[in-house]
Protein backbone atom coordinates (compact mmCIF):
# COMPACT_ATOMS: atom_id res chain seq x y z
CA UNK A 1 0.00 0.00 0.00
CA UNK A 2 2.88 2.39 0.72
CA UNK A 3 3.92 2.19 -2.93
CA UNK A 4 0.46 3.16 -4.11
CA UNK A 5 1.64 6.53 -5.36
CA UNK A 6 3.93 4.70 -7.76
CA UNK A 7 1.18 2.51 -9.17
CA UNK A 8 0.95 3.62 -12.78
CA UNK A 9 -2.72 2.69 -13.30
CA UNK A 10 -3.78 4.58 -10.15
CA UNK A 11 -1.88 7.67 -11.26
CA UNK A 12 -3.49 7.43 -14.68
CA UNK A 13 -7.04 7.32 -13.27
CA UNK A 14 -6.40 10.27 -10.97
CA UNK A 15 -4.69 12.40 -13.61
CA UNK A 16 -7.42 11.67 -16.13
CA UNK A 17 -10.10 12.69 -13.63
CA UNK A 18 -8.23 15.90 -12.85
CA UNK A 19 -8.18 16.79 -16.51
CA UNK A 20 -11.79 15.72 -17.19
CA UNK A 21 -13.33 17.98 -14.57
CA UNK A 22 -10.63 20.70 -14.68
CA UNK A 23 -10.01 20.61 -10.96
CA UNK A 24 -6.79 21.67 -9.24
CA UNK A 25 -6.37 18.82 -6.79
CA UNK A 26 -7.05 15.09 -6.70
CA UNK A 27 -6.30 13.04 -3.60
CA UNK A 28 -6.66 9.38 -2.74
CA UNK A 29 -6.87 8.34 0.91
CA UNK A 30 -6.79 4.67 1.93
CA UNK A 31 -6.95 2.72 5.12
CA UNK A 32 -3.60 1.21 6.06
CA UNK A 33 -3.21 -2.56 6.06
CA UNK A 34 -3.96 -4.08 9.47
CA UNK A 35 -4.52 -0.72 11.13
CA UNK A 36 -7.45 1.66 11.40
CA UNK A 37 -5.27 4.57 10.18
CA UNK A 38 -6.36 6.28 6.97
CA UNK A 39 -3.70 8.25 5.09
CA UNK A 40 -3.45 10.21 1.86
CA UNK A 41 -1.52 7.85 -0.39
CA UNK A 42 -1.63 9.80 -3.61
CA UNK A 43 -2.15 13.44 -4.56
CA UNK A 44 -1.97 15.38 -7.77
CA UNK A 45 -1.88 19.16 -8.03
CA UNK A 46 -0.63 19.39 -4.45
CA UNK A 47 1.07 22.60 -3.24
CA UNK A 48 3.30 20.83 -0.72
CA UNK A 49 3.96 17.39 0.76
CA UNK A 50 1.88 17.86 3.93
CA UNK A 51 -0.65 15.30 2.65
CA UNK A 52 1.97 12.56 3.07
CA UNK A 53 2.15 13.21 6.82
CA UNK A 54 -1.58 13.70 7.45
CA UNK A 55 -3.48 10.87 9.08
CA UNK A 56 -7.22 11.18 8.50
CA UNK A 57 -9.10 11.25 11.79
CA UNK A 58 -12.06 8.86 11.93
CA UNK A 59 -15.28 10.85 11.56
CA UNK A 60 -13.40 14.16 11.22
CA UNK A 61 -13.08 16.35 8.17
CA UNK A 62 -14.28 15.46 4.73
CA UNK A 63 -12.38 12.15 4.33
CA UNK A 64 -13.03 11.01 7.90
CA UNK A 65 -16.75 11.68 7.57
CA UNK A 66 -16.93 9.80 4.26
CA UNK A 67 -15.14 6.75 5.68
CA UNK A 68 -17.40 6.69 8.74
CA UNK A 69 -20.66 7.33 6.84
CA UNK A 70 -19.92 5.70 3.48
CA UNK A 71 -21.60 8.60 1.64
CA UNK A 72 -20.23 11.23 -0.77
CA UNK A 73 -19.78 14.80 0.41
CA UNK A 74 -19.46 18.22 -1.17
CA UNK A 75 -18.16 21.53 0.19
CA UNK A 76 -18.87 24.54 -2.00
CA UNK A 77 -17.18 27.35 -0.12
CA UNK A 78 -14.87 26.24 2.68
CA UNK A 79 -14.98 27.24 5.51
CA UNK A 80 -18.56 28.52 5.19
CA UNK A 81 -21.29 26.21 6.52
CA UNK A 82 -18.97 23.44 7.70
CA UNK A 83 -19.83 21.07 10.52
CA UNK A 84 -17.27 21.39 13.32
CA UNK A 85 -14.12 23.47 13.39
CA UNK A 86 -11.93 24.66 10.49
CA UNK A 87 -9.09 22.59 11.96
CA UNK A 88 -11.20 19.43 11.52
CA UNK A 89 -10.49 19.75 7.76
CA UNK A 90 -6.67 19.45 7.50
CA UNK A 91 -6.47 18.58 3.79
CA UNK A 92 -8.56 21.67 2.93
CA UNK A 93 -6.18 23.84 4.98
CA UNK A 94 -3.01 22.15 3.77
CA UNK A 95 -3.95 22.45 0.11
CA UNK A 96 -5.84 25.75 0.41
CA UNK A 97 -8.94 24.14 -1.11
CA UNK A 98 -12.18 26.10 -1.17
CA UNK A 99 -14.51 23.62 -2.87
CA UNK A 100 -14.39 19.86 -2.93
CA UNK A 101 -16.32 16.73 -3.82
CA UNK A 102 -15.33 13.38 -2.40
CA UNK A 103 -16.67 9.83 -2.61
CA UNK A 104 -15.98 6.66 -0.63
CA UNK A 105 -14.11 3.65 -2.03
CA UNK A 106 -15.72 0.39 -0.98
CA UNK A 107 -13.91 -2.91 -0.50
CA UNK A 108 -15.97 -5.90 0.60
CA UNK A 109 -18.91 -3.49 1.06
CA UNK A 110 -16.94 -1.50 3.65
CA UNK A 111 -15.73 2.08 3.00
CA UNK A 112 -11.94 1.97 3.23
CA UNK A 113 -10.85 4.82 1.02
CA UNK A 114 -11.73 8.26 -0.30
CA UNK A 115 -11.30 9.86 -3.70
CA UNK A 116 -11.36 13.64 -3.41
CA UNK A 117 -11.31 16.35 -6.05
CA UNK A 118 -10.91 20.00 -5.17
CA UNK A 119 -10.60 23.55 -6.42
CA UNK A 120 -9.02 26.58 -4.82
CA UNK A 121 -12.09 28.69 -5.54
CA UNK A 122 -15.79 28.65 -4.73
CA UNK A 123 -17.46 26.03 -6.93
CA UNK A 124 -20.43 23.66 -7.14
CA UNK A 125 -19.59 20.31 -8.74
CA UNK A 126 -22.29 19.44 -11.28
CA UNK A 127 -24.10 16.09 -11.32
CA UNK A 128 -22.11 15.11 -14.39
CA UNK A 129 -18.84 15.90 -12.61
CA UNK A 130 -20.00 13.99 -9.54
CA UNK A 131 -20.69 10.97 -11.77
CA UNK A 132 -17.19 11.22 -13.25
CA UNK A 133 -15.68 11.13 -9.75
CA UNK A 134 -17.87 8.14 -8.90
CA UNK A 135 -16.78 6.32 -12.09
CA UNK A 136 -13.12 6.91 -11.28
CA UNK A 137 -13.71 5.67 -7.72
CA UNK A 138 -15.24 2.45 -9.08
CA UNK A 139 -12.22 2.00 -11.35
CA UNK A 140 -9.86 2.53 -8.44
CA UNK A 141 -11.81 -0.01 -6.36
CA UNK A 142 -11.17 -2.62 -9.04
CA UNK A 143 -7.50 -1.68 -9.39
CA UNK A 144 -6.84 -1.74 -5.67
CA UNK A 145 -8.96 -4.75 -4.74
CA UNK A 146 -5.89 -7.01 -4.65
CA UNK A 147 -4.01 -4.67 -2.31
CA UNK A 148 -6.86 -4.42 0.17
CA UNK A 149 -8.23 -7.96 0.42
Amino acid at each position, binding site marked *: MSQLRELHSVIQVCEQLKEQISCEFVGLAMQNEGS*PDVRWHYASGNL*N*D*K*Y*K*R*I*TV*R*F*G*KGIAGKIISSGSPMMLEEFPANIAGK*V*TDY*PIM*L*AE*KLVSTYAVPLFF*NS*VPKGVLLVGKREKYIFSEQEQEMVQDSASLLEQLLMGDIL
Partner: protein
Amino acid sequence: MDPLKMKQKINSYIIDSQEEEIKRIALELHEGVGQNLYSILTGLQFIESGTQEPAMKNYVREMELLIGKTIQEIRLLSVELHPPALTTLGLLPAMKSYIKCYTSTFGILVDLNSDGIEKQIPEKDRIAVFRVCQEALMNIAKYADTSNVKINFFWKKDELKITIDDFGKGFQPKEYGDSSGLAVMKERMLLTGGQCVISSKIGEGTSVEISLPLE
Protein backbone atom coordinates in the same frame (compact mmCIF):
# COMPACT_ATOMS: atom_id res chain seq x y z
CA MET B 1 -10.84 46.08 45.18
CA ASP B 2 -9.13 47.67 42.19
CA PRO B 3 -11.47 47.05 39.13
CA LEU B 4 -8.57 45.73 37.03
CA LYS B 5 -7.57 43.24 39.75
CA MET B 6 -11.23 42.23 40.13
CA LYS B 7 -11.50 41.63 36.35
CA GLN B 8 -8.35 39.54 36.38
CA LYS B 9 -9.64 37.51 39.32
CA ILE B 10 -12.92 36.82 37.47
CA ASN B 11 -11.07 35.88 34.27
CA SER B 12 -8.80 33.58 36.23
CA TYR B 13 -11.80 31.94 37.94
CA ILE B 14 -13.61 31.35 34.60
CA ILE B 15 -10.49 29.86 32.98
CA ASP B 16 -9.75 27.61 35.98
CA SER B 17 -13.36 26.33 36.07
CA GLN B 18 -13.26 25.60 32.34
CA GLU B 19 -9.96 23.74 32.66
CA GLU B 20 -11.32 21.66 35.55
CA GLU B 21 -14.39 20.72 33.49
CA ILE B 22 -12.27 19.90 30.42
CA LYS B 23 -10.03 17.71 32.57
CA ARG B 24 -13.06 15.89 34.02
CA ILE B 25 -14.56 15.19 30.56
CA ALA B 26 -11.16 14.04 29.21
CA LEU B 27 -10.74 11.62 32.11
CA GLU B 28 -14.31 10.34 31.78
CA LEU B 29 -13.78 9.69 28.06
CA HIS B 30 -10.49 7.90 28.62
CA GLU B 31 -11.28 5.91 31.74
CA GLY B 32 -15.02 5.39 31.22
CA VAL B 33 -16.11 5.28 27.57
CA GLY B 34 -12.67 4.16 26.33
CA GLN B 35 -12.43 1.27 28.79
CA ASN B 36 -15.96 0.07 27.98
CA LEU B 37 -15.20 0.09 24.27
CA TYR B 38 -12.03 -1.88 24.97
CA SER B 39 -14.12 -4.52 26.79
CA ILE B 40 -16.44 -4.72 23.75
CA LEU B 41 -13.39 -5.16 21.47
CA THR B 42 -12.08 -8.03 23.63
CA GLY B 43 -15.53 -9.64 23.50
CA LEU B 44 -15.65 -9.36 19.72
CA GLN B 45 -12.18 -10.92 19.42
CA PHE B 46 -13.44 -13.82 21.56
CA ILE B 47 -16.50 -14.23 19.31
CA GLU B 48 -14.29 -14.10 16.19
CA SER B 49 -12.00 -16.84 17.49
CA GLY B 50 -15.01 -19.11 18.11
CA THR B 51 -16.67 -18.46 14.73
CA GLN B 52 -16.04 -20.88 11.88
CA GLU B 53 -18.22 -19.36 9.14
CA PRO B 54 -15.96 -17.15 6.93
CA ALA B 55 -18.60 -14.48 6.19
CA MET B 56 -19.45 -14.06 9.87
CA LYS B 57 -15.76 -14.08 10.82
CA ASN B 58 -15.15 -11.30 8.29
CA TYR B 59 -18.10 -9.28 9.60
CA VAL B 60 -16.88 -9.55 13.20
CA ARG B 61 -13.39 -8.52 12.09
CA GLU B 62 -14.84 -5.41 10.44
CA MET B 63 -16.68 -4.61 13.67
CA GLU B 64 -13.41 -5.00 15.56
CA LEU B 65 -11.74 -2.53 13.19
CA LEU B 66 -14.57 -0.04 13.69
CA ILE B 67 -14.37 -0.36 17.47
CA GLY B 68 -10.57 -0.03 17.22
CA LYS B 69 -10.96 3.20 15.26
CA THR B 70 -13.48 4.51 17.77
CA ILE B 71 -11.17 3.70 20.71
CA GLN B 72 -8.33 5.50 18.96
CA GLU B 73 -10.55 8.52 18.31
CA ILE B 74 -11.80 8.62 21.93
CA ARG B 75 -8.19 8.44 23.13
CA LEU B 76 -7.14 11.26 20.76
CA LEU B 77 -10.12 13.38 21.78
CA SER B 78 -9.31 12.86 25.45
CA VAL B 79 -5.62 13.72 24.97
CA GLU B 80 -6.60 16.71 22.86
CA LEU B 81 -8.88 18.01 25.62
CA HIS B 82 -6.37 17.54 28.41
CA PRO B 83 -3.04 15.79 27.77
CA PRO B 84 -2.34 13.46 30.73
CA ALA B 85 1.39 14.11 30.29
CA LEU B 86 0.77 17.72 31.34
CA THR B 87 -0.21 16.57 34.82
CA THR B 88 2.07 13.55 35.17
CA LEU B 89 5.26 14.36 33.23
CA GLY B 90 5.39 18.13 32.84
CA LEU B 91 5.21 20.83 30.18
CA LEU B 92 8.00 19.71 27.84
CA PRO B 93 6.92 16.03 27.51
CA ALA B 94 3.31 17.21 27.02
CA MET B 95 4.42 19.55 24.23
CA LYS B 96 6.45 16.77 22.57
CA SER B 97 3.46 14.48 22.64
CA TYR B 98 1.13 17.21 21.33
CA ILE B 99 3.52 18.02 18.47
CA LYS B 100 3.47 14.39 17.29
CA CYS B 101 -0.31 14.55 17.10
CA TYR B 102 -0.16 18.01 15.45
CA THR B 103 2.16 16.80 12.67
CA SER B 104 0.01 13.76 11.91
CA THR B 105 -3.12 15.97 11.85
CA PHE B 106 -1.88 18.91 9.77
CA GLY B 107 1.26 17.56 8.11
CA ILE B 108 3.28 20.48 9.51
CA LEU B 109 6.73 19.56 10.83
CA VAL B 110 7.68 21.04 14.18
CA ASP B 111 11.27 21.28 15.34
CA LEU B 112 11.27 21.50 19.15
CA ASN B 113 14.43 22.37 21.07
CA SER B 114 14.96 22.84 24.76
CA ASP B 115 17.89 24.74 26.21
CA GLY B 116 18.67 24.47 29.92
CA ILE B 117 17.27 22.25 32.65
CA GLU B 118 13.50 21.85 32.81
CA LYS B 119 12.07 23.20 36.05
CA GLN B 120 8.90 22.35 37.93
CA ILE B 121 6.06 24.74 37.15
CA PRO B 122 2.76 24.96 39.09
CA GLU B 123 0.00 23.05 37.24
CA LYS B 124 -2.07 26.19 36.65
CA ASP B 125 0.83 27.93 34.88
CA ARG B 126 1.77 24.75 33.01
CA ILE B 127 -1.76 24.55 31.58
CA ALA B 128 -1.74 28.26 30.64
CA VAL B 129 1.57 28.01 28.77
CA PHE B 130 0.47 24.79 27.06
CA ARG B 131 -2.83 26.35 25.91
CA VAL B 132 -1.08 29.43 24.54
CA CYS B 133 1.37 27.24 22.57
CA GLN B 134 -1.58 25.15 21.36
CA GLU B 135 -3.43 28.28 20.19
CA ALA B 136 -0.29 29.53 18.40
CA LEU B 137 0.08 26.18 16.60
CA MET B 138 -3.62 26.15 15.64
CA ASN B 139 -3.27 29.65 14.18
CA ILE B 140 -0.28 28.42 12.17
CA ALA B 141 -2.32 25.49 10.77
CA LYS B 142 -5.17 27.83 9.85
CA TYR B 143 -3.42 30.88 8.48
CA ALA B 144 0.37 30.63 8.14
CA ASP B 145 0.65 28.55 4.94
CA THR B 146 3.83 26.85 6.10
CA SER B 147 5.26 23.34 6.39
CA ASN B 148 7.81 24.02 9.13
CA VAL B 149 7.66 25.46 12.62
CA LYS B 150 10.45 25.99 15.12
CA ILE B 151 9.80 26.01 18.87
CA ASN B 152 12.54 26.85 21.36
CA PHE B 153 12.31 26.47 25.15
CA PHE B 154 14.88 28.46 27.13
CA TRP B 155 14.97 27.47 30.79
CA LYS B 156 16.64 30.25 32.73
CA LYS B 157 17.11 30.56 36.50
CA ASP B 158 14.06 32.74 37.06
CA GLU B 159 12.23 32.59 33.74
CA LEU B 160 11.00 30.25 31.03
CA LYS B 161 11.08 31.75 27.56
CA ILE B 162 9.42 30.05 24.59
CA THR B 163 9.68 31.22 21.01
CA ILE B 164 7.47 29.89 18.20
CA ASP B 165 8.49 30.83 14.65
CA ASP B 166 6.46 29.72 11.62
CA PHE B 167 8.34 31.17 8.60
CA GLY B 168 4.93 31.44 6.92
CA LYS B 169 3.17 34.20 5.02
CA GLY B 170 2.82 36.48 8.05
CA PHE B 171 0.20 39.14 8.67
CA GLN B 172 -0.14 42.85 9.39
CA PRO B 173 -0.28 43.01 13.22
CA LYS B 174 -2.16 46.34 13.14
CA GLU B 175 -5.04 44.78 11.20
CA TYR B 176 -5.42 41.85 13.57
CA GLY B 177 -4.78 43.73 16.82
CA ASP B 178 -8.39 43.18 17.93
CA SER B 179 -8.43 39.42 17.19
CA SER B 180 -9.93 37.63 20.18
CA GLY B 181 -7.66 34.59 19.73
CA LEU B 182 -4.51 36.69 20.01
CA ALA B 183 -6.00 38.72 22.88
CA VAL B 184 -6.78 35.52 24.83
CA MET B 185 -3.18 34.30 24.38
CA LYS B 186 -1.88 37.58 25.82
CA GLU B 187 -4.44 37.64 28.64
CA ARG B 188 -3.70 34.05 29.70
CA MET B 189 -0.02 34.80 30.01
CA LEU B 190 -0.72 38.06 31.88
CA LEU B 191 -2.75 36.07 34.44
CA THR B 192 0.31 33.91 35.15
CA GLY B 193 2.45 37.00 35.66
CA GLY B 194 4.15 36.39 32.34
CA GLN B 195 3.87 37.83 28.86
CA CYS B 196 3.03 36.91 25.29
CA VAL B 197 4.39 39.06 22.48
CA ILE B 198 3.28 38.42 18.91
CA SER B 199 5.16 39.92 15.99
CA SER B 200 4.68 39.33 12.29
CA LYS B 201 5.91 40.55 8.94
CA ILE B 202 4.25 39.80 5.61
CA GLY B 203 6.32 37.26 3.68
CA GLU B 204 8.60 36.51 6.61
CA GLY B 205 6.30 34.78 9.08
CA THR B 206 5.03 35.16 12.60
CA SER B 207 6.87 34.95 15.86
CA VAL B 208 5.29 34.31 19.26
CA GLU B 209 7.40 34.95 22.34
CA ILE B 210 6.11 33.65 25.64
CA SER B 211 7.73 34.32 28.98
CA LEU B 212 6.81 32.87 32.35
CA PRO B 213 8.47 33.90 35.62
CA LEU B 214 9.82 30.95 37.60
CA GLU B 215 10.04 30.99 41.38
